[in-house]
């Protein structure tokens, strides 16, 4: 009996439950589809390249899902509250008719069960379809071929989804039961009357609040554009940034708080417009609703801002890597050695826990660079196994070159001869964003000799550079922000005084292509000074880093050579002739692994961005939809009156559309404005790694979001139209 009542209720309250069902179904679909990531990655052939990728991403997604389930849970509670509010009278009536609270609670529980189960079944069905399709999407994200496609069902994803839904269900239920348990029958019965009170706010005050909010937002924008983002956790920068954040949050809330009052005042100023058709009704409805929804509009604007900013930033970073990886991987394999400075060597020798005290090792600063090819032969493949064998880099090497970079701080000196800060000062430019760290004065550029650089150029198949006896040039592949400084230095023909030698630029611009010493997805060479050999010899600079660039004997990207280099290997100590340890092996990378990690990183970032962004956008849109529908049905009586006064349903629907457009558009507009400002600052940071390119992926994601958000908007409008039509049709019963 109760079951029948509950089922009937769900059917009757179908429209209210529809948004609830729709959102929950979408959540289930997305939860399931994204949680099959491990299987998808397997099928898309990603795991062949990155064996751990599936598990890693799967783990991240599961964690995210739990977080998003929380968000969804609260959304569902909100949606459910809306349904409950409308039905308080009904629940009161049940009790007046003699049902116990327990029975009413059971009816409500059953209703929630029906809807949740329906959402689960629908959502899983859609999720199954979506997850099959997503395999192709995944393959294209990770740039792989689908290896073993088959219809698949993921029990773990299923379990995860059901678990999340159960949690959402329980939370919703607890809130519902509280409504029944707490409310007095008399309150329930009079609930609809209570809802009708409308507090009108003085539109002048609202308009003033709006202006203050807008001003605060502008101030925050100016502050952010002026101060930029904080780096390196400097407390001062952090404090400034926090204040800016607070200002923008308060500003956004005030903005929405006063928005309708402001619009009302503006429109009232235009008398002909205000006193025309339903314009004043539209405006008054808007401003009446603002009390209840302005705060959530502000929150939605902020959430959309977060979604837009993180998705765009993530994807831009991904596409930056995509665009720089080709330039960043000029050879098959690179490795490097970082040398110890005298200071570090002395410190470590003095520390028995590092040097091992008596009978231990000795650290030293090298007098000259070591031969990397020879040194690598001391490494061991498959160490501590029966297959142990010496590492023979030469066996797979076709051609190679070694670049020896020196520290720009001469032996015995305290300060570097050339620093980025010095160069900035020379051309009157500020330090690039992200480089204003505290040790900016002591960090010098690395220095290489002209002959060594020409060896590198010859190896790369490039034209040699004539540095002459008093020439210099600068190298960097870090992208516009840093390179711009070097370009300015070269262009303005800045004379460098390097240890008494007066040097002049021999190039007008930095050649970024001819600046890559290490295979990497982003720029690694933050600044290298090329000087004549005689100058380098005379300066007495200590070796800083040596790079080894190798092309395979078996041809570019030879898989066997890649496999040889990726095999398990024990690194040896880097020693000089006397047996002192003079440095450690630095990063090494083959072109293939760099590409793979770029693809994986891109895939990962895109995946997470879309997942988070989609759920957040759906959540925001669902809240707006529920609010609008509740607003429209609260105003049903008003719409009936309008109809009786001779307004056509079309005109009423038009007024509703205007209101809803304002409610849906403004949070997006504010969110986008915030994002635009934030992104323009973030762009500076990303440019440090090679410039910002908003690729097709961002456009694609934006399209998905627009469809989701716009879909909710359409649903809202169509359902509102239905509510208006019903309200207009409602007759006076005499």
């Amino acid at each position, binding site marked *: 009996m109760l079951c029948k009542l509950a089922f009937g209720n769900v059917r009757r309250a179908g429209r209210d439950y529809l948004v609830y069902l729709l959102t929950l179904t979408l959540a289930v679909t997305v939860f399931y589809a994204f949680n099959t990531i491990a299987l998808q990655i397997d099928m898309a052939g990603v795991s062949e390249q990155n064996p751990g990728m599936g598990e890693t991403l799967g783990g991240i997604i599961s964690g995210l899902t739990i977080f998003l389930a929380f968000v969804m849970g609260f959304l569902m509670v909100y949606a459910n509250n809306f349904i409950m509010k409308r039905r308080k009278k009904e629940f009161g009536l049940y009790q007046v008719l003699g049902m116990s609270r327990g029975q009413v609670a059971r009816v409500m529980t059953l209703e929630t069960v029906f809807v949740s189960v329906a959402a689960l079944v629908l959502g899983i069905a859609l999720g199954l379809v979506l997850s099959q399709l997503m395999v192709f999407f995944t393959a294209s994200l990770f740039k792989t071929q689908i290896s073993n496609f088959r219809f698949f069902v993921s029990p773990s994803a299923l379990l995860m989804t059901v678990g999340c839904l159960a949690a959402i269900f329980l939370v919703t239920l607890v809130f519902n039961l509280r409504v029944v348990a707490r409310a007095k029958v008399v309150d329930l019965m009079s609930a609809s009357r209570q809802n009708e009170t409308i507090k009108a706010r003085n539109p002048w005050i609202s308009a003033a609040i709006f202006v203050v909010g807008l001003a605060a937002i502008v101030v925050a924008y100016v502050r952010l554009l002026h101060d930029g983002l904080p780096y390196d956790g400097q407390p001062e920068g952090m404090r400034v940034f926090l204040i800016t954040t607070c200002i923008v949050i308060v500003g956004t809330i005030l903005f929405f708080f006063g928005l309708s009052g402001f619009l009302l005042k503006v429109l009232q100023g235009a008398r002909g417009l205000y006193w025309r058709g339903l314009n004043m009704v539209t405006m*008054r409805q808007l401003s009446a609703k603002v009390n209840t929804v302005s705060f959530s509009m502000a929150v939605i604007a902020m959430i959309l801002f977060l979604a837009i900013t993180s998705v765009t930033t993530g994807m831009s970073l991904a596409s930056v890597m995509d665009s720089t990886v080709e330039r960043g991987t000029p050879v098959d394999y690179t490795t490097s050695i970082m040398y110890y400075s005298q200071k570090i060597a002395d410190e470590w020798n003095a520390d028995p826990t590092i040097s091992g005290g008596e009978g231990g090792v000795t650290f030293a600063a090298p007098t000259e660079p070591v031969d990397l090819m020879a040194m690598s032969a001391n490494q061991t493949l498959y160490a501590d196994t029966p297959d142990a064998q010496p590492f023979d880099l030469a066996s797979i090497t076709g051609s190679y070159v070694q670049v020896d970079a020196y520290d720009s701080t001469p032996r015995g000196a305290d300060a570097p001869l050339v620093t980025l800060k010095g160069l900035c000062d020379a051309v009157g430019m500020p330090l690039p964003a992200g480089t204003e760290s505290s040790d900016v004065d002591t960090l010098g550029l690395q220095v290489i000799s002209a002959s060594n650089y020409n060896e590198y150029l010859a190896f790369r198949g490039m034209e040699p550079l004539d540095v002459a006896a008093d020439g210099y040039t600068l190298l960097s592949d870090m992208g516009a922000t840093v390179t711009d400084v070097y370009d300015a230095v070269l262009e303005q023909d800045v004379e460098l005084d390097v240890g008494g030698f007066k040097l002049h630029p021999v190039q007008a611009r930095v050649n970024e292509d001819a600046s890559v010493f290490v295979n990497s997805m982003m720029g690694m060479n933050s600044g290298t000074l090329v000087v004549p050999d005689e100058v380098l010899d005379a300066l007495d600079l200590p070796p800083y880093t040596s790079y080894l660039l190798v092309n395979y004997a078996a041809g570019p990207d030879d898989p066997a050579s890649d496999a040889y280099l990726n095999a398990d290997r024990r690194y040896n100590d880097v020693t000089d002739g006397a047996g002192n340890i003079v440095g450690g092996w630095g990063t090494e990378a083959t072109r293939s692994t760099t590409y793979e990690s770029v693809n994986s990183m891109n895939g990962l970032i895109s995946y997470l961005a879309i997942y988070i962004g989609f759920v957040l956008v759906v959540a925001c849109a669902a809240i707006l939809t529920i609010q609008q529908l509740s607003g429209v049905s609260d105003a049903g*009586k008003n719409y009936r*009156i*309008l109809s009786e*006064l001779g307004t056509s349903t079309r005109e009423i629907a038009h007024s509703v559309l205007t209101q809803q457009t304002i409610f849906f558009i403004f949070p997006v507009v504010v969110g986008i404005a915030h994002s635009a400002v934030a992104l323009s600052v973030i762009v500076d940071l990303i440019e440090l790694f090679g410039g910002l390119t908003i690729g097709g992926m961002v456009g694609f994601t934006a399209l998905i979001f627009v469809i989701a958000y716009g879909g909710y908007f359409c649903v809202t409008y169509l359902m509102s139209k239905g509510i208006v039509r019903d309200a207009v049709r409602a*007759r006076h019963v005499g």
Partner: protein
Amino acid sequence: MDQHNIGAHSAKPAQVAGGAASRVHMTIPNPTVPSSPAPATRAVAPVLDVRHVEKVYGARNNVTRALADVSFTVMRGEFVGIMGASGSGKSTLLNCISTIDAVTSGNVYIDGADVTAMKPAKLTRFRREQLGFIFQDSNLLDTLTARENIALPLTISRVPASEALVRVEDVAARLSISGVLDKYPYQMSGGQQQRVAAARALVTNPAIIMADEPTGALDSKNARLLLECFETMNRDYQATVLMVTHDSFAASYTQRVLFIRDGRIFTELRRGTSSRQDFFNRIMEVVAMMGGEGSDAL
């Protein structure tokens, strides 16, 4: 002239209605004072002409006949009351006349136009231009001020703001509600709300103003104020008012009362030159007689 009209339309159903006819005919009191009411001198054509209107609810084996062959006319500038017990069909009649509900058969002519034959779009426009409504609950838009509520029918009809606002002020002054123009409905008393609603109905200068139990939710003082408003509207604006009520006191403010029972016009009373008190007493007599026959007390 008037009498002819009424005779033609209201007496006919009684004659053709079979068994009930003779009884109904007998209970009709003597046709009231012959002297013709003042409005008839101003206009000759009836502003409302209801002919053989029938309204049936439900389908097949569950049919409710809310209105059965109702006919009557209202002249321009008349203030007419419709009385009847709840369920008698008086609100259905008003809804049919006001185009909110559709008739099952018969015709309703307002200012010569047959509203039962109009398409929805034309109906909307017609309602906007020719009809004014006042309901038991004032039906003001709760989000609008009194001024905006009164101006609403004008803005919907695209009357220029300058003209609309002048007309609002004018009507408000006549109905003594100038003081509440900038208040919201929830800041007004029930009586003030009803008078604002009356002003809203009046402001477009409609052919007929329909009032459905306008005093139903008011105390006697506010009810009297509102009814005086109606008299003002009727006198100063020559507004034609059709008021449905079950309150004999409210009905006594009208010039003519139609009594409806079981979906038919049972009888009618004319005030003529008699005093309101006298008219009230005569209404009470009919009410008592109708009640005495075992139907609901009015």
